[in-house]
């Protein structure tokens, strides 16, 4: 190594800009902490790999051959929902207030989406995959679940209803 003829300049940062950079890092770290706490401590989780299926046979064999709601125990339900162009089967799910329900959703054709109106129950529905989310239905009422991924000409008509009874 030969010494360079001029000293190498070092990074110089204006003091206001340095302050801003620190503030930006603190702010972003706070956001990261918030979603971590919401995920780890409050249990607001995202869909995880559940089960892989063959979209060409899923409607004729396995749990999606008879989609619908089943009561597992008092106050505990599961629902298998088949998405297809352009409807959800079943179209209506009825559960009593306060019960916990696990949704399993898949598609036998193209991609669909599933969002329960007014909640954070939100999943992509992808052929070959099963999407699962569990939640507790606290408030009585009628809630639409709406397909939120473009799935062809009838996409805008694709929705179903969750009824939470008293």
């Amino acid at each position: 190594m030969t010494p360079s003829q001029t000293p190498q300049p070092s990074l110089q940062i204006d003091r206001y800009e340095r302050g801003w950079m620190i503030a930006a890092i603190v702010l972003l770290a706070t956001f990261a902490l918030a979603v971590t706490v919401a995920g780890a401590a409050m249990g607001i989780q995202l869909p995880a790999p559940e089960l892989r299926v063959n979209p060409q046979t899923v409607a004729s064999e396995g749990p999606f051959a008879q989609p619908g709601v089943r009561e597992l125990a008092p106050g505990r339900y599961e629902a298998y929902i088949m998405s297809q162009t352009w409807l959800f089967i079943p179209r209506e799910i009825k559960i009593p207030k306060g019960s916990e329900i696990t949704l399993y959703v898949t598609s036998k054709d193209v991609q669909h989406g599933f969002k329960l109106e007014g909640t954070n129950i939100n999943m992509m529905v992808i052929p070959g995959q099963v999407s699962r989310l569990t939640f507790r239905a606290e408030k009585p009422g009628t809630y639409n679940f709406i397909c939120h991924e473009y799935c062809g000409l009838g996409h805008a008509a694709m929705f179903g209803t969750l009824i939470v009874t008293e």
Partner: protein
Amino acid sequence: MTAITSTTAVPAAPVARPATYALSATEKRLVGLNVLVAVLALFIGSLFGPLQALEHARVDLYPLLQPLLKSYYQGLTLHGVLNALVWTTFFITGFFTLTIPFALRRPLAAPKLNWAGFIVQTLGLLTAAVPILLNQASVLYTFYPPLQAHFTFYVGLTLVVVGSWIQGYGFYITFYRWRKDNPGVRSPLMALGSVITMVLWQIATLGVAVEILTQLLPWSLGLLKGVDPQLNRTYFWFTGHPLVYFWLLPAYVSWYTMLPKQVDGKLFSDALARFAFWLFLFLSVPLGFHHQYVDPGVPPMWKYIHAILTYAVAFPSMLTAFTVIASLEVGGRARGGKGLFGWIPALPWRTPSVNHQLLAGILFFLGGIGGIVNASYNVNLVVHNTAWVPGHFHLTVASAVTLSFMGIAYWMVPHITGRTLWAPKLAVIQGWVWFVGMLIFATAQHRVGLLGAPRRTPLGQAPYVPASWQPWTFLTAIGGVILFVGVILFVVIILVTVLRKPAHPSQVPAIPEAEALQDPQLTPAWLDRWAPWLVATVALILIAYGPQLIYQIANMSNTSPGFNNIW
């Protein structure tokens, strides 16, 4: 605010930099043709914007357009492909054909390569246009399988991307030759930022390249019976998120290296501007899973890692906010602005190019906040695939980027054609029309999205729309129509400018080039070196994407046949 002062001696550049460089006729022609295709794409794509917006307010004009246009979704495909993909890509390759030779003060090293790239890109566009116009590819710009377009759609998209790569190779060679001839000299930021953007694009587009070449193209040709839709989403979003930085960084090139000059200011910090560009290269690819937070086939741990990296990539944008605003302040004070905020009205708001880029920055501030919400892991559950999302990206790609590109066009088109801008006052108004239209449109889309309205959906025909959504769908339509007026004004101003008589050379706008407050030779060498940043970029992609990519590829199950007759 204090300027940076330094006692370090400035290392002398061995070769004196020429004071300016006049683009050759062939370079001007290349810039012009790229921008011409871009503006045509913007114009045609924007014709469908108001149709969609009006449909949401239950004014459905699509039936009137039969048999030209079959459906809302065909229009939406045209709107997304032409505006988000074609307008941006062609404008960017055109803009860089100007910035790179100009900043390096030397001609393109291999202009034939750039021509070849432009021709391939344009042939690709024409190839993809045929199936879209024939309603054989109404798959939207995300083309998620198993919706299956005609194979020519995939061929066309591939050629557009490959053409842009080839134009990129022309830029790399030019930059490399300059680097060889100028050892020890800091590369001009304008050229460095441009080339970093093209390298980012090169790396990012490998995702869709693999998707199309190994899955969608053979499948659409009947060589593959089925594809794996989940794997294809992962491939797509490998490209899909850095794509937004490919759109945004050219605007940053202008904000950092041109806009300060246009407002009589100076670039506040050359070193931190470079740092921001390198961080974008380093961080913008391994974030794609933040578009897949609610995908069933991706483990939450990887989604979480990408969430954290997404927060990290917000840092260089926040850095940019400071540096650009400080550079503007230098200009506003030089123009006589006093007091804490007095420099803001002192800025040349009546210069169309400046006005547009300032308004772009304001809208981008709002878009950035929404982007943080989208990035926020479990908070995203509330907004994923709702109208909030198009609300968000109309503030980013359709405002920060598009308004900036319009502002750039207002000096660049006159410069390369030897004209003066027609109706500069109208051009200023055009920017405000866009700004107001976008505030209304984006507010409405964000709000109706929070209420649960799905995106990409003709809400006018949806049976489930409650009364509470209707004020917002109505405002969506109002905003959309105002934006349409804005885009038509832009196209008319550019068209009339080009058709004017050539102006006296002294009247033709020069290329704005900002100086930095501190000599760039004082910027540390590590901010001007490619190898460490490229190695780090590839390493981070391998760490943050590698294991999931390998897992998903190893467990590929090509069980989804194509659906091509359902739109």
